[in-house]
């Protein structure tokens, strides 16, 4: 009974809710980007690697400049550079997307850890005091749900991007091109749509957002960087995109579920439930598998998914 009272107490609820939103932000960003990429027919398995590189670059720059915006921008820049390489490989060189994606993933993990060790050795630097949440006046004082309105700007942006990305995909010429190219590229090509450029732009968008997500993770959420900092978030984002059937509003549910699982790490400890830390850490991944099992039947993948386009 004590436990229930604690869970439904205002401070606990607020912390859980707020923490969940913060934790889900990197996933939302990565998933929105990946949504574009996959709608165009490309599978970016290197997403995790791009997020890690974004996280690392952002962390280092933020540490040096003590400015959160420089950090975020650097993260996006680093990640987009990798995305450009990936895009060139799979779109223009028509390399197997799974191979290239895994290669980028391994590369991203390796180089981030390598550079971290070389720059910092055995130290454990922490980014402090450069980010702050931006509370929305009045709304951030409503009991229980006030933490929704007391988040980082990036979190608000990520939530805003959800309907925006839907709108781009379904209401603009570019979005139509992306969907056509992902479903049947030869049809788009025959009607004058540049298949390669359309896909390349989606990959770059995906890279930008992945970098922002990783940067947010290291600077705003955790304030530090460790090996494999993303712990599979990139793959979770891919899973969410597939489950959401490319519908941006459903992406939020998946990401938020992840955020709750993350938050529970602290939540359950506060409540006093003596669950081993590792079980809570496992929660997000088990949740993904459970949801995959329940929901992912008859997923319709775009017709040209994972296949390089060749005209002749």
């Amino acid at each position: 009974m004590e436990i229930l009272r604690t869970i439904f107490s205002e401070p606990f609820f607020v912390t859980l809710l707020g923490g969940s939103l913060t934790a889900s932000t990197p996933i939302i960003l990565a998933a929105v980007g990946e949504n574009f990429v996959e709608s165009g027919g490309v599978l970016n398995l290197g997403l995790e690697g791009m997020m890690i590189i974004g996280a690392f670059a952002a962390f280092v720059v933020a540490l040096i400049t003590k400015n959160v915006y420089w950090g975020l921008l650097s993260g996006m820049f680093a990640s987009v550079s990798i995305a450009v390489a990936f895009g060139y490989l799979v779109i223009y060189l028509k390399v197997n997307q799974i191979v290239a994606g895994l290669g980028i993933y391994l590369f991203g993990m390796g180089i981030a850890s390598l550079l971290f060790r070389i720059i910092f050795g055995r130290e454990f630097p922490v980014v402090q005091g450069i980010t702050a949440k931006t509370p929305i006046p009045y709304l951030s004082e409503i009991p229980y749900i006030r933490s929704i309105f007391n988040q980082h700007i990036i979190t608000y942006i990520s939530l805003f991007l959800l309907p925006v990305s839907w709108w781009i995909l379904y209401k603009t010429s570019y979005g139509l091109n992306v969907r056509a190219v992902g479903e049947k590229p030869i049809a788009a090509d025959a009607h004058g749509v540049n298949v390669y450029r359309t896909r390349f732009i989606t990959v770059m968008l995906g890279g930008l957002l992945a970098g922002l997500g990783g940067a947010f993770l290291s600077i705003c959420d955790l304030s530090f960087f460790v090996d494999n900092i993303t712990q599979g978030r990139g793959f979770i984002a891919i899973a969410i995109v597939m489950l959401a059937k490319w519908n941006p509003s459903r992406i939020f549910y998946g990401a938020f579920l992840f955020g709750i699982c993350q938050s529970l790490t602290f939540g359950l400890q506060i409540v006093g439930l003596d669950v081993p830390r590792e079980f809570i850490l496992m929660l997000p991944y088990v949740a993904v598998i459970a949801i995959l099992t329940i929901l992912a039947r008859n997923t319709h993948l775009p017709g040209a998914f994972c296949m390089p386009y060749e005209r002749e």
Partner: protein
Amino acid sequence: MNVIEMKGITKRFNDLIANDNIYFDLGESEIHTLLGENGAGKTTLMNILSGMYQPDEGRIYVKGKKVNISSPEISLNLGIGMLYQHFTLVPTLSVLENILLGTNKKFFLPKKEAKKKFNEIAKQYGLHMDPDVKVWQLSLGEQQKVEIIKLFYQGLDVLILDEPTSVLTPLEIEDFFRMLKSMKESGKSVIFITHKLKEAFRISNKITVLRRGKKVEEVDLENKTEGKGKDKILNQIVEVMFKDVEPIEEAKEIPKRTMGETVLSLEEVTVKNDKGLEALHKVSFSLRRGEILGIAGVDGNGQKELAEVIAGQRKVSSGRISINGTDITNKSVKFINNKGVFYVTDDRMGEGCVGNLTLAENVILRCYKKEPFSNKGIILNLKAIEEYGEELIRSFRVKAPTAKALVKTLSGGNIQKALLAREFSQQPIILICSKPTHGLDVMTAQFILNEIKMQSSRGTSVLLISSDLEEIKELSDRIGVIFKGELLDILSNEKATREEIGRLMLGLKRKGK
């Protein structure tokens, strides 16, 4: 002045010369037919004009100016549009979205204006269509109409139509030709690609004949005087198309067969397609030993599902299928193979074989577990497999260097022969053949038709599924017509006229009326 001039166009694919120094001109308000066998190079030449391919040599002039058409976008900007043989519509998008694809230069999608313009054009040409319907829900004929509306929507002057009548029934073809004439009268120029002589004669102003990549003839049908007429020109063209070093096989007479007891029986078979919609509805028929039953119909009316359900690749929702009395409903492919039923698919590269494996590895698809190809069904006997491949190459005259050649290096006709060889060699009791000669040149086509006839004389019953009326007429004892998943009627070949079959293919005459 000529609207289009193509001079000295040459295009090679590895060793194959698809277009060899071709000169082709198109005038204003003209219907110019590009005639030739399957594989003659017509589609390749037009793909160069539409920007999908780049020529290795040659120049192109549009309205007198030299142009370099390096992409479809440039071709469209020049006012040239193409109706491709395999449709370029995106199935999951709506008709309107397909119309807007590539034609809308603005950032937003002006759906209201587009709809208005769409409806106007549709009315003008007498084509009725709901712009919000998703393309996968349309029949092939309707999809073609969408493609045509799209060409008009863009206000193009030059229209290239690649084998447009292949998805139409005889009646629809009449409407189509009427539309072509009105297009010509309104000032457009049309290039009409076909392999059907009769069609070429009906509507063309000019005919250019291609053969094996070369231009072999060009006739102007309007400048010939009356009387000197059509017959002489027809003969001239036939000679130029088919005069050959190797004699074409004559269409063999089907040897006299005694048709025996019922070997295959379908009772009220209902089947769903991949989208979960009903593809076959209460289909019933029976096939006798030694009989060739032709199933005629426009593509997309359930033929694929019919073949698959009998072959074991698809389950029934209801109904019963039996072979010689044994129930084979919903049994596995291997079980059905063991009962002597085999299926030659029309999707050669997508389903029938694996391009990256050798010919030998492909032809043992049905028998790799049997001796001598594998010891105890576990260890492959590579030598026996290779010898078997060589043997089939010889007996079916497949043009391949050895049985070790990768299938993707072979031509379509040779792949089809290999597939046929593979299924025939299993000594089938029942053979399902889907569009066995589509896309093949006349020699290979005749060879295959003769082989099927020979096989039937050995006692094999054949279910011939095709949209090609000539093929059906030449081979079948009885002809059934399938329309929107229903088997409308079964007629004897002798008594059925092309008109009757054509009407049934459109769903016009129903059984019992």
